[in-house]
C-alpha cells in the first residue's frame, strides 16, 4: 500500500529541495513518486550508474560514499563523505548532465524513502520553469554544502592515503630489518652496508610521508581542539629523548637550562613535543660534531619561552625570511637530509597557539657566523575546549 498523493506531497514539501514549491507543484510531482524501504547496508545508488531517481529520506539514514583505491595492491576502501538524514535528498545527479550518480549511496540503518522518478521530474521541471528554478536553486545550495564538507573529507582521505603509502614501506622495512638481523642467513660487510643505507633511505621516505600528510591536515582548529593542561618540562624531556640517538651519532651534547620550576600550561601537548623535537633535530643536523646544543626555558610575565641554540653555520641572511615556508630548504644545507617541512610544521603549530617562533643568527666577537637561535613563545592565557565551553555558559 502506498501513501496517498496528498501525504506524499506533504512529505516532499518538508524536504530541503522541494520546500519552496507551492502545493500545486508538489501534488503533481507526487504523481510520479512511490515509497520504498532499504535495509541496513543495502546499496541505494552506485557511483557511475545512470541516475534516474531522486530520493527524499523520510526515516533512517543514508551515507554517501566514495571508493578510494591507491595502486593495484591496496584494498579499496569506502570513505563516507556525508550523511543524508530525514528530509534531505539523494540523487541530485538525476537533474545534472550526464545524469550519472556521482557517488555511491548506502543505507546505514533501515531507511524509508520517497522515490521520485527522475525522467518525469526532469520533464516536469522543464515544463514548469518557476518550479525548475526553485529546485535548481535548492540543489545549488545543497551542492555548496557538500563542497564545504569536502575539507573534512580531505582529512579522512589523507589518513587513508598515508596508510596506503606507509603499508608497502613498512613491509620493505620489515624485510630489511629481518635480513639485517641475520634471520635470513649471514651477510657480508658490503651487503650489510648497502642494506643499512636502504634502511636510512626508507626511513627518510617514511618520515617525509608523515610530514606531508601532517602538514596538509594541520588546521588551527584541529590543533586547538587538542588543547589540554600539561607539564612543559616533561614534554621538553620527551623531545630530548626523541633526539637522543641523532645527537649521540654526532657526539653532540644537549645542554639543558630549565627554569627553577615548570608550571603546567595549556596547549596541544603532542604538537608542542613536535615543535621542540623539530627544533632540536634541526639544531643537531646543522651543529658540528662534538659540539653543544643549548635547550633553555624560562617564564616571562605572560608567556613561556623555549630556546634552542646551535653552533652551526647559521642561516644565510637572504634565506631568513623564508625558512618557515613549506618545502623551503636554506641554500647552504648541502646534503643534509629532509624535505624542509619541520620548521613550517613548527610555525603552523605555534600560530595555532597564538604564539611565536623566531629565528636569529649568532655572530661571534670577530663578526663571523657562530650558529643560529630559535625561540618559541607560548602564551600563558590559552584555554582548553572545556574552559571555552564554560565561558559561553550563562552566569549562575
Amino acid at each position, binding site marked *: 500500500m502506498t501513501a496517498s498523493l496528498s501525504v506524499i506531497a506533504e512529505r516532499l514539501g518538508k524536504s530541503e529541495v522541494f520546500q519552496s514549491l507551492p502545493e500545486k507543484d508538489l501534488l503533481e510531482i507526487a504523481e510520479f513518486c512511490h515509497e520504498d524501504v532499504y535495509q541496513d547496508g543495502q546499496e541505494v545508488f552506485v557511483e557511475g550508474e545512470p541516475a534516474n531517481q531522486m530520493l527524499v529520506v523520510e526515516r533512517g539514514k543514508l551515507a554517501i560514499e566514495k571508493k578510494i583505491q591507491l595502486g593495484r595492491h591496496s*584494498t579499496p576502501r569506502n570513505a563516507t563523505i556525508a550523511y543524508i538524514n530525514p528530509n534531505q535528498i539523494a540523487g541530485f545527479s538525476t537533474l545534472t548532465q550526464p545524469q550519472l550518480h556521482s557517488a555511491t549511496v548506502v543505507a546505514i540503518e533501515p531507511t524509508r524513502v520517497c522515490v521520485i522518478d527522475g525522467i518525469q521530474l526532469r520533464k516536469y521541471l522543464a515544463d514548469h520553469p518557476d518550479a525548475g528554478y526553485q529546485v535548481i536553486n535548492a540543489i545549488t545550495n545543497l551542492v555548496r554544502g557538500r563542497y564545504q564538507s569536502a575539507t573534512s573529507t580531505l582529512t579522512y582521505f589523507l589518513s587513508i592515503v598515508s*596508510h596506503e603509502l606507509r603499508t608497502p614501506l*613498512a613491509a620493505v622495512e*620489515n624485510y630489511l*630489518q*629481518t635480513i639485517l*638481523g641475520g*634471520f635470513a642467513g649471514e651477510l657480508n660487510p658490503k651487503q650489510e652496508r648497502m642494506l643499512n643505507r636502504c634502511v636510512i633511505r626508507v626511513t627518510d621516505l617514511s618520515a617525509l610521508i608523515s610530514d606531508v600528510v601532517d602538514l596538509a591536515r594541520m588546521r588551527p582548529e584541529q590543533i586547538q581542539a587538542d588543547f589540554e593542561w600539561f607539564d612543559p618540562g616533561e614534554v621538553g624531556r620527551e623531545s630530548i629523548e626523541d633526539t637522543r640517538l641523532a645527537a649521540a651519532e654526532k657526539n653532540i651534547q644537549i645542554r639543558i637550562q630549565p627554569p627553577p620550576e615548570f608550571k603546567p600550561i595549556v596547549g596541544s601537548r603532542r604538537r608542542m613535543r613536535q615543535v621542540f623535537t623539530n627544533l632540536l633535530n634541526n639544531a643537531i643536523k646543522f651543529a658540528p660534531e662534538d659540539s653543544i646544543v643549548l635547550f633553555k626555558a624560562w617564564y616571562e610575565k605572560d608567556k613561556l619561552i623555549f630556546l634552542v641554540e646551535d653552533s652551526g653555520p647559521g642561516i644565510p641572511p637572504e634565506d631568513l625570511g623564508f625558512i618557515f615556508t613549506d618545502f623551503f630548504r636554506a641554500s647552504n644545507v648541502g646534503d643534509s637530509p629532509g624535505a624542509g617541512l619541520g620548521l613550517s610544521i613548527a610555525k603552523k603549530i605555534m600560530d595555532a597557539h597564538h604564539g611565536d617562533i623566531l629565528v636569529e643568527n649568532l655572530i661571534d666577537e670577530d663578526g663571523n657566523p657562530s650558529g643560529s637561535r630559535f625561540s618559541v613563545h607560548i602564551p600563558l592565557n590559552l584555554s582548553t575546549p572545556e574552559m571555552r565551553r564554560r565561558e559561553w555558559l550563562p552566569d549562575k
Partner: protein
Amino acid sequence: MNENPSILIVDDDPDILDGILLILESQNYHLRSARDGIQCLALLKEEVPDLLILDLLMPRMDGWGVIREVRSDSRYADMPIMILTTVIEDASRRRYELETGHSMDIQAYIEKPAKPDHLLSMVEELTRRKK
C-alpha cells in the same frame, strides 16, 4: 601437548607476516597465523594462544573489532595482546575509546616497522608470564 609458548599472528599483509614469522621462527615458539579478524577469531576458538600479535587495519574485521570481541569473552581473559601496526598509538587508543567507551586493554603496542630485537624481547616478556 606443545610445551613451547604458542603465538597467533594476525596481519593482512603477506610480506609483513612472512617477515615476522621469520624472526619468531628463530626461537622455540609454536606459531599460527591469520589474515583478518574473522579468521583470527576462528583460530582462537580452536586453541587459545599464549600471545596474540594483532594488526589493526585489516579487511573483514579489523583489529579493534577483534579486541572488542576478545575482551568481552572470559575464555580469553588471560591472553595477552600485542598490537603491531602502522597506526600511531594515540590515534588508535582514542578511536577504541570513542567506539567502545572503554580503554584499550592490550599488553604491548609496537608501531611498524618493528626492530627484530625489540619484537623478540617483548614477545619473550609477554609469553614468559604464562609459563
